[in-house]
């Protein structure tokens, strides 16, 4: 708790102005987004973005769904599920090894993942495109899934390692004294106690995959493998003057994340907050 939270002190006007001002900046576009998605193009264009609407209509959502967004929705969901599956299978074992195996090789593995954090996806889009084309995966969902999962691994491993370090050494020792194998310890001690970290990496990699843009942009082109973000981009280019329809498409893209956010807010925030360190 910070000092300004203590009761009985004079109100902090500066904080009030800052927080209220920022709230307006954050919420105004959200208001326009939701409102415009329910307006006709004529109404929106004649009355302006901020005005209170006279009447609302869901017709934009029909337009959006008829222009192929259901397909994009399904594609994005498949990619997200696959990326999460890969991360969940690969990350806990490597984090377990990093935390409990003190050997040089595993320390090196940890360093490699640390280094991986600083490699921007942007830098490798050309070679990824080259490799994916050469192995004949261009324009498939797998082409997007493989690198998206790979670039989720470093951060997920770091988060999972932090979560497993919170398990005290005594618990490991107790199980080891009873002669438990590493598989047994992993299955019955580490996995149950690292549930929080697990939730965080699932949400992280899912958010990453759902919102991904660059990799689908360079690794796919056909409508049948198009993802939501690319659909938004294309839709924006072909109907840039139809702001309400664009807003409806954006609203649709956010709904699934909003649902996840409502159910898993804590895990998400804990992970993001943890990034800052002490």
């Amino acid at each position: 708790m910070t000092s300004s939270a203590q009761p009985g002190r004079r109100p902090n006007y500066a904080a009030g102005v800052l927080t209220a001002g920022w709230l307006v900046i954050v919420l105004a576009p959200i208001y326009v987004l939701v409102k415009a998605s329910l307006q006709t193009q004529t109404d929106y264009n004649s009355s302006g973005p901020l005005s209170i609407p006279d009447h609302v209509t869901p017709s934009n959502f029909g337009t959006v769904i008829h222009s192929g967004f259901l397909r994009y929705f399904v594609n994005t969901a498949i990619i997200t599920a696959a990326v999460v599956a890969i991360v969940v299978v690969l990350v806990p074992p490597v984090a377990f090894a990093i935390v409990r195996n003190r050997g040089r090789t595993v320390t090196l593995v940890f360093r490699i993942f640390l280094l991986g954090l600083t490699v921007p996806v942007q830098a490798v889009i050309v070679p990824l495109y080259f490799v994916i084309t050469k192995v004949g995966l261009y324009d498939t969902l797998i082409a997007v899934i493989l690198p998206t999962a790979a670039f989720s691994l470093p951060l997920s491993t770091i988060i999972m390692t932090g979560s497993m370090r919170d398990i005290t050494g005594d618990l490991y020792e107790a199980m080891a004294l009873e002669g438990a194998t590493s598989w047994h310890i992993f299955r019955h001690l580490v996995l149950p106690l690292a549930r929080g970290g697990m939730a965080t990496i699932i949400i992280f990699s899912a958010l990453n995959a759902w919102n991904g843009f660059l990799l689908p942009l360079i690794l796919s082109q056909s409508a049948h493998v198009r993802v939501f973000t690319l659909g938004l981009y294309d839709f924006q280019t072909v109907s840039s003057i139809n702001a309400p329809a664009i807003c409806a498409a954006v609203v649709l893209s956010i709904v699934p994340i909003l649902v996840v956010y409502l159910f898993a807010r804590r895990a998400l925030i804990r992970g993001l907050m943890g990034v800052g360190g002490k």
Partner: protein
Amino acid sequence: MTALAVRGGRKKSSGGLQIGRPSFLWSLPALLYFVVCALVPLGVVIWLSFTSWNALGSPAWVGTDNWTSLFHDATLIHSFKVTAILTGLGILTQTPVSLLLGVWAAGHERNRAILSALYFIPLLMSATAISIVWLSLLNPYYGLPRELHWLFDNSLLGHGYLFSYTGTAIGVLTFVGMWQWTPFHTLIYQGGARAIPEVLYQAAAIDGAGRVRQFFSITLPQLRNTIITSVVLILVGSFTTFDSILILTAGRPGVSTTSTSYYMYVNGFEKFQFGNASVIGVLLVVVTTLISLIVVRVSGWDKMRSTQEGV
């Protein structure tokens, strides 16, 4: 999005017990996957930078031709300037706001929790969605500039034609970047501020230090590592900003918002000069890695401890 807040170092060995300790093999699947899908391409990009390839056929070895021609490429040199300006403006705008908001949000009152949840909304949106929404909002004919002409109708804001002038286009990218990333950095600072021991503030209050004094003598110094982390994330993030430039300005007007990573994309996927694009890719990797290494060295990042305390 990257993060490097890591508990480094090895703990003192807790007993010599070797039973039940996982072997190196446990790390092998993830390592192999990461090496094949992320690190091998890093090697390939170096090789491609010495070739000429237009997406058809096979790359042809051209030695250092791409490198020498790019070092004389005025647009590339200009793109570094654009990237530096966008990065600098990103740090200058995002750091103060998110620092103040984060410290404020670290309090435990109910209204702060509710406001924090609202501040969080932009984080749920993809960069694509955010850019598209702002592109619509800032449209000079149907968007905010027409509705709020008292605000936009001056030469400072290009009379509402924000995308037509260099200064205002840079301003749009900076502002949208701020809208997109401030919530994330606010969360980082909130976590950092919550980890500051309450006893420090109590001691300061007993000594009669006011709110402002406490902020500068306790909060800021205690948040040193958090500030470093946040600034580095903005640095690396700005270097690789791509989606918002592609959607909002497409590098225009002229090449005045063409950042280095966007220029790489243009070279590769619009001009099909993948050799040139690879050179820029190599430069990007080198620069971002250097930044991270320098910061890790200077800040002792790798020695940082727990990241989850105080949540």
